[in-house]
């Protein structure tokens, strides 16, 4: 069984502040690297308990070079660094039997979601596909779904686990903490989190026959609300984007991959509006 792991950091046990996940932070971030890596390791160990063999890990947080190689099994492959096409789900087309989302977090605007955001917290206020407000987990699951890859496991705070399992009921969820607002959480210890993740991963792989690829039904309508009007000003420069409000744009596509790519490039160009004019 060939497994894809998209590994984020905010949903790791004990993490509740941006300082902990910001690679430029020299005090708290290195500890979070260890915690994140060990949770990924626990997920892989659990998957292997249940018979998974080949594993590709996509480091999907911030600079996307957080994972500590020396703490991972020596026979996995790791996608490191940014920028990469399809970002958090780069490589989804490489023929996987299932996917794990580890360290995932709630979407922007969710109350009680620790460090909740969707791709970019300084640009994006809301994103929806075909009218459904989306987290990173849903956006990414739909990319994997294009290639027939079902999501099997999500780990993170209770908010993202609950939301993901509501839309993808076959997914095994491991909630390692309960968010108390955006910057606080009541969390398991790292050791307990690893044990829970390992058990969840084992169960997820064992139950994979029940899992389904997730998809949005074409045609696809992507709607983005931005934090400020100047973000929408820049997105409106992109071909095929329609300005539907002061801080709202819409993109229609026949297929989800086109819409997802448009979402990523829109988020990126909007960030240019945060530079001095």
């Amino acid at each position, binding site marked *: 069984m060939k497994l894809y792991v998209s590994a984020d950091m905010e949903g790791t046990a004990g993490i509740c502040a941006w300082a902990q996940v910001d690679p430029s932070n020299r005090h708290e971030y290195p500890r979070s690297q260890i915690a994140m890596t060990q949770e990924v390791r626990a997920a892989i160990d659990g998957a292997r308990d249940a018979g998974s063999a080949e594993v590709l890990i996509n480091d999907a947080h911030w600079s996307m070079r957080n994972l500590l190689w020396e703490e991972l099994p020596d026979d996995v492959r790791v996608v490191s660094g940014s920028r990469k096409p399809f970002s958090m789900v780069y490589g989804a087309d490489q023929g996987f039997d299932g996917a794990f989302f580890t360290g995932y977090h709630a979407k922007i605007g969710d109350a009680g979601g620790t460090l909740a955001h969707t791709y970019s917290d300084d640009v994006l206020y809301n994103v929806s596909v075909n009218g459904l407000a989306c987290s990173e987990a849903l956006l990414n699951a739909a990319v994997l779904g294009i290639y027939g890859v079902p999501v099997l496991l999500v780990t993170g705070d209770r908010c993202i686990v609950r939301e993901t399992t509501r839309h993808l009921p076959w997914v095994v969820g491991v909630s390692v903490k309960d968010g108390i607002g955006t910057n606080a959480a009541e969390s398991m210890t790292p050791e307990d989190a690893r044990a829970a993740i390992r058990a969840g991963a084992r169960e997820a792989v064992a139950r994979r026959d029940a899992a389904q690829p997730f998809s949005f039904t074409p045609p696809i309508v992507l709607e983005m609300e931005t934090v400020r009007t100047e973000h929408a*000003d820049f997105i409106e420069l*992109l*071909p095929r984007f329609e300005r539907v409000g002061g801080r709202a744009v819409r993109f229609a596509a026949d297929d989800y991959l086109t819409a997802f790519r448009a979402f990523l*490039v829109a988020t*990126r*160009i909007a960030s240019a509006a945060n530079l001095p004019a």
Partner: protein
Amino acid sequence: MRLYISSDMEGVAGVCAWEQVDARTPHPEYERYRAFYTYEVVAAIEGARSAGATEILVNDSHGPMRNLLLEELPTGVRVIFGARKPFSMVQNGGGFDGAFFIGYHGAIGDADAVLAHTYTPSVVYEVRLNGVVCSEATLNAALLGYWNVPVLLVSGDRTTVDGVRTMMPWVRGVTVKESIGMFAADSISPVAARRAIYEGAAAAVSDRAAARAYDVASPVVLDVQLAKVEQADLVATIPGFERTGARSVRFIDPEMPVVFKAFVATFRLGGLA
């Protein structure tokens, strides 16, 4: 007669260094050259009015696009001030009987062109419309042409003026300097430049019946070569863009305004890489 003026700074008489035109980290020289720039625009306005221009819109099109000394402008003109306009140097350029390009400069890659660049030199290595290498003047003329507005006058260094007149022979040119490479020029004085621009502007408005809107055949093929591979990595993900090489992208659309905005998106996005 309704006149549109797109004014840039690098092609102003005497200008030969970035410090003179850098509004973001102002050098003492910038304040002086800002005045020279303003007076060239004033000369163009007054020359055009002497030949019958009545309604005039000036688009400050340099850098952060708030360089003109507004208090020095004649009353009765309107000014577009400020940056990040979707149509940038030709914002609101529709509905005019003609356009002036004042203080314009050569395309990136032009030899003997002071401060030559095309929009964002750190990103744009070369840009073509339908296979033809473009300067800012030709890109802007193409959008004005879509709106049926002919370019009547260009002022700048000889390379710029000759370049524009090769593409659009009906345009009157006022050469204010001979460029000696990228950072040196043999220039007429600011006072002489104002006089030449005043006279050129008057003649350009008088002769406008001979001018034509610059026509770019539709569909328009935009080819951009980027300075760096990582810029192309980003730009190639814009909807409808095709990666034609490690550092090159292509975009095709029937409508020039869509193409123009796609080009603006290209250098905005490329600038992040």
